């Protein structure tokens, strides 16, 4: 029998062999062919923890930190470990309900998976932090507190310059795909935080840790050999003078506009005020999200940096540049006179440009008294200069002067969102939609000669123009950051170190303009803003402007402009101020503000009388009527929403408490509520607030009438 079946031993060997070959083939596939398992194993066991270095600081010219770091505490959750905790107790500690708790856990899982930690609540307020810290042991593993450095702004000022950091979104990640950001990281979104992000962020470190199947950290991987040390962000030394900045912000309270002050010798920006502004610390703490949306929807646009992102017709301040062009082109000299009999009639009698004081003017007195006719004549001569074959080329020549003066193009300042401003070009007029080739001449754009019409400039450009004139023919690109701790590794500051001499004009030309501008302060339109002991050269501007309301251009109150530099010899400050829609003249609001700024900067102090002036200016409310309207509209909308929310809560409470009243409809509840409202309760003011909320179906009730009375 055994002999008969001997061959079967071979079959059995074969079966064994085949089984082993199959196993080895699968092992070969798993271990040699397929590479994905190594990756999966790393995902399982290796935690790459980013180590965030502290961001760099920003210091002002007196080396005080104006943008700093402080610590805040985040409550972190690892959803897979958070099971089985006393949820009710936890919710009581956190002041949330269980539904909110569930919602946050689910959000955390979606964001980061259940076994990785996510933020449960960012920036715990101090009281909550204390409560949680005391009880955190009850929620071990599931929850822990993580400290995170946040930005702080010790001066509560310069919000728009310094900017803020925010969580990066997918768009940002796409744009900066090579810089190693991950979702959840913070990066500079505006201001210097954004422009110098590379410098401020430092270099992230990496800790490679090993974890077990419960996601518990077991220690460094390979003894920490693969860790990368984090390098702190470098500090920025800025040219800002925080004292001056705060003075400017104070004077601009309840005004729309900006102030830009530049050190002409370096191009360093000493102050850059954009008003209305906001407290930058609003965008760092717990309430960041809410505050941001408030600021974002505020009709006063506090997040807009008007100093670089708003452009205005420069008005009469533009005459200084027209004078430079006229002298540069040789169409006038300092002894050229033009007379004004009440208006400029050089273009016929169609729509003459008025002039304030009739008389005969030299260039200097033309600037001093801001004579429109004088500069209309100057520009007419430039455009109709027989040296050029046609208006195209003469306007082009004029353009080149303007570009050289920094108009019509971005200067390249180191705060984002800079606007170009506008200088009218031949192409623009040649456009058939405008005039078409050959169908235009000086008279088509004569208002440009006095800085109205097609010409616009940003406050920064106007201030830079002052620096250019003060320096008699050169400027440095305006910038806020002078130097970087540890050197300028990315070459960000190179362009700010080069003197820009765009065009050669004789010193005498500038002297003539300086004379006129000095005259403005001594006997001209800005004489009310003299500062004893300082020779200031200034120029006022009163800018007519229109708002587009439902397709119609409606004239708005004038902008008040003033630009100046001081002292005339060895200038230390070039400055401009615009107060939007203030009505009145450039000399009324902008000039005193500028003179106070100059005095503060040069004398380092203000006399008592002058301080009173500061307070008076700060207390002047010049918010334009259009903006006031929008604010009111927004307020009432917001109140409407709040009221609705309150109503809903009320509804819920009533439903919760009155179990028997199952059929209570929303309308009935509303009814009850209005009855409540009619009871005299609080101050009349509050009542007015509530009546704002009246919904249409209730208008027949007497409450509707109250509304009108309350408004009056």
């Amino acid at each position, binding site marked *: *029998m*055994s002999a*008969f*079946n*001997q061959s*079967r*031993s071979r*079959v*059995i*060997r074969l079966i*064994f*062999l085949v*089984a*082993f070959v*199959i*196993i*080895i083939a*699968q*092992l*070969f596939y*798993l*271990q*040699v062919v*397929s590479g*994905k*398992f*190594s990756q*999966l*194993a*790393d995902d*399982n*066991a*290796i935690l790459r923890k980013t180590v965030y270095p502290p961001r760099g600081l920003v210091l002002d010219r007196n080396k005080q930190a104006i943008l700093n770091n402080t610590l805040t505490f985040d409550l972190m959750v690892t959803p897979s470990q958070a099971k089985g905790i006393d949820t009710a107790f936890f919710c009581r500690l956190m002041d949330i309900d269980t539904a909110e708790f569930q919602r946050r856990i689910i959000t955390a899982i979606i964001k980061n998976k259940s076994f990785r930690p996510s933020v449960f609540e960012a920036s715990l307020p101090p009281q909550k932090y204390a409560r949680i810290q005391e009880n955190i042991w009850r929620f071990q593993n599931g929850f822990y507190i993580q400290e995170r450095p946040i930005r702080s702004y010790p001066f509560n000022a310069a919000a728009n310059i310094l900017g803020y950091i925010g969580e990066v979104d997918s768009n940002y990640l796409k744009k900066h795909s090579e810089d190693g950001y991950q979702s959840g990281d913070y990066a500079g979104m505006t201001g210097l935080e954004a422009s110098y992000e590379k410098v401020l962020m430092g270099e992230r470190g990496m800790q490679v840790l*090993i*974890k*077990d*199947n*419960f996601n518990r950290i*077991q*220690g460094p991987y390979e003894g920490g050999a693969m860790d990368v040390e984090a390098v702190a962000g470098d500090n920025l030394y800025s040219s800002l003078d925080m004292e001056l900045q705060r003075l400017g912000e104070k004077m601009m309270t309840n005004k729309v506009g900006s102030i830009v002050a530049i050190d002409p010798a370096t191009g360093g920006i000493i102050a850059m005020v954009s008003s209305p502004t906001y407290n930058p610390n609003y965008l760092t703490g717990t309430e960041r999200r809410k505050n941001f949306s408030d600021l974002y929807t505020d009709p006063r646009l506090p997040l807009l940096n008007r100093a670089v992102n708003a452009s205005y017709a420069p008005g009469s301040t533009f005459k200084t540049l027209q004078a430079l062009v006229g002298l540069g082109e040789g169409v006038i000299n300092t002894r050229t006179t033009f007379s004004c009999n009440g208006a400029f009639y050089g273009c016929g009698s169609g729509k003459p440009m008025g002039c304030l004081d009739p008389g005969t003017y030299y260039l200097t007195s033309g600037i001093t008294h801001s004579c429109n006719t004088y500069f209309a004549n100057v520009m007419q001569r430039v455009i109709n200069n027989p040296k050029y074959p046609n208006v195209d080329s003469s306007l082009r020549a004029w353009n080149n002067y303007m570009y050289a003066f920094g108009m019509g193009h971005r200067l390249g300042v180191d705060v984002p969102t800079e606007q170009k401003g506008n200088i009218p070009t031949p192409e623009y007029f040649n456009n058939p939609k405008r005039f078409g080739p050959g169908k235009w001449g000086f008279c088509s754009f004569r208002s440009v000669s006095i800085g109205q019409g097609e010409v616009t400039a940003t406050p920064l450009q106007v201030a830079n123009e002052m620096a250019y004139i003060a320096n008699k023919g050169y400027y440095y690109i305006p910038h806020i950051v002078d130097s970087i701790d540890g050197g300028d590794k990315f070459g960000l500051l190179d362009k700010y170190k080069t003197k820009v001499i765009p065009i050669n004009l004789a010193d005498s030309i500038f002297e003539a303009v300086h004379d006129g501008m000095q005259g403005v302060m001594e006997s001209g339109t800005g004489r009310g803003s003299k500062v004893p002991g300082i020779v200031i050269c200034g120029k006022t501007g009163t800018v007519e402007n229109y708002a587009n309301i439902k397709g119609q251009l409606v004239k708005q109150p004038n902008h008040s402009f003033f630009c100046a530099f001081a002292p005339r010899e060895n200038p230390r400050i070039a400055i401009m101020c615009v107060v939007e829609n203030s009505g009145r003249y450039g000399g009324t609001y902008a000039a005193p503000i500028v003179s106070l700024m100059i005095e503060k900067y040069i004398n380092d102090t203000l006399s008592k009388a002058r301080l009173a002036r500061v307070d008076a200016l700060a207390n002047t409310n010049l918010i334009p009527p259009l903006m006031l309207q929008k604010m009111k509209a927004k307020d009432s909308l917001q109140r409407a929403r709040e009221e609705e929310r309150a109503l809903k809560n009320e509804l819920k409470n009533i439903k919760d408490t009155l179990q028997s009243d199952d059929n209570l409809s929303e309308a009935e509840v509303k009814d009850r509520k209005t009855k409540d409202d009619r009871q005299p309760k609080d101050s009349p003011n509050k009542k007015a607030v509530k009546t704002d909320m009246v919904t249409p179906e209730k208008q027949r009730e007497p409450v509707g009438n109250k509304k009108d009375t309350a408004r009056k």
Partner: protein
Amino acid sequence: MNQRNPAISKGIDWSLAGIYFLLVAIGLTAIFAATYKEGDPVLQSFLKFKTDYSKQFFFFVIGTVIGFFILLTDSKFFSATANLGYVMGIFFLLLVFPFHSPVKGTESIIKMGAFNFQPAEFCKIFVALALAKYLSRPETDFSKIRSQLIAAGIALFPAVLTILQSETGLALVYFAFFIVMYREGLPSVILLIGFAIAALIVATIVIEPNTLAIILTALAAFIAYIFRRQIKRRRSIFTKIVLFWVLCVGIQRFAVPYIFKNILQKHQVERIYDLFGKDNPYLKKGESETAEESKKIKESGSSYNVRQSKIAIGSGRVLGKGLLKATQTRYDFVPEQRTDFIFCTVGEGFGFTGSFVLLGLYLILLFRIITVAERQRSTFSRCYAYGVAGVFFFHIAINVGMTIGLAPVIGIPLPFVSYGGTALLTFTILLFILIRLDADRQMVLR
């Protein structure tokens, strides 16, 4: 021959003994790698037998001592006491039912003092001996169906008892004894039918029921077409084809669903379906849980084990990560890695090279056992040797297969390597009895 061997070492197959020591050494290393934590005092805990590797070493020492005594025992003892041993084994298996200890997931363990004691594990020894004894009886004519049935009964009776103890995995091992029967003349047809049924069951799981029924019908029609001439001559062939078709479709449509629904437990069915990457379709309506719940089951259940085990083994690549640098096995990602999933430690720590060496060692062991079996003069020794080969083969193939996703997770240990006292002792005794019998290979045992 001469029964009084002056030296115990005479006739011993040193290659088997050598492989045994190698495998145990590999096992101890693997258990050490899987359970050692940074900073454990190795020597101290080793001496106190507090760690798994020291316990395993302790069992290894006991095993060697028992092996030594086995080598001192007269080979006749084993054939003489085979039937008695079988009865004793069954007795212990029955003893489990009233006296099993409350260990979760199984009802197969008796606690005796400090020792856990699993009759289902070591009963294999008695079955191997008893089956060999039965097959080697001069009056047994294995070509008769009756003898074949008795032999199958001897092998499968303990399996039935083991299933009743919720140890399906251990029970399946008893099917390994069909290798012995095959060697002794069990008709190949039976094995073929066995494979065919296995293939049909797999097809039932993988292929949608109606599609499979159509395929089977088409197959039957095709066969009938091929044999159309013969069918014309003899109608019975056609009847046979039809009957065969009915049987296949019956298994597919009724038998398999019945077994999955009513006989096997839910988690077992789940594991079988996991193996083929399918969801268990036999859940009752009320149990058809939400997606999240089923995911939970998946994550905690066997498919999680297999996934983690594949990750661990796959991440070992060609050369492995090194003994104590294996992140997956060191930080408990693979459950049960000391015991059923010990192969992961080898796969991750020593890579394809290490796995290949270990499997090579096992294959040499199996082939060596077959060589040893074929040189026996006595049928008893030969049958016993094939029994040992079968049991080892089944354990190795299924255990390694389940760690790499080729076999369902049925929780059986890897011989000599997995942590576990009973298993190590059982395998040691199985092997040493074989060595002892082989030493007396010239003798004819009855």
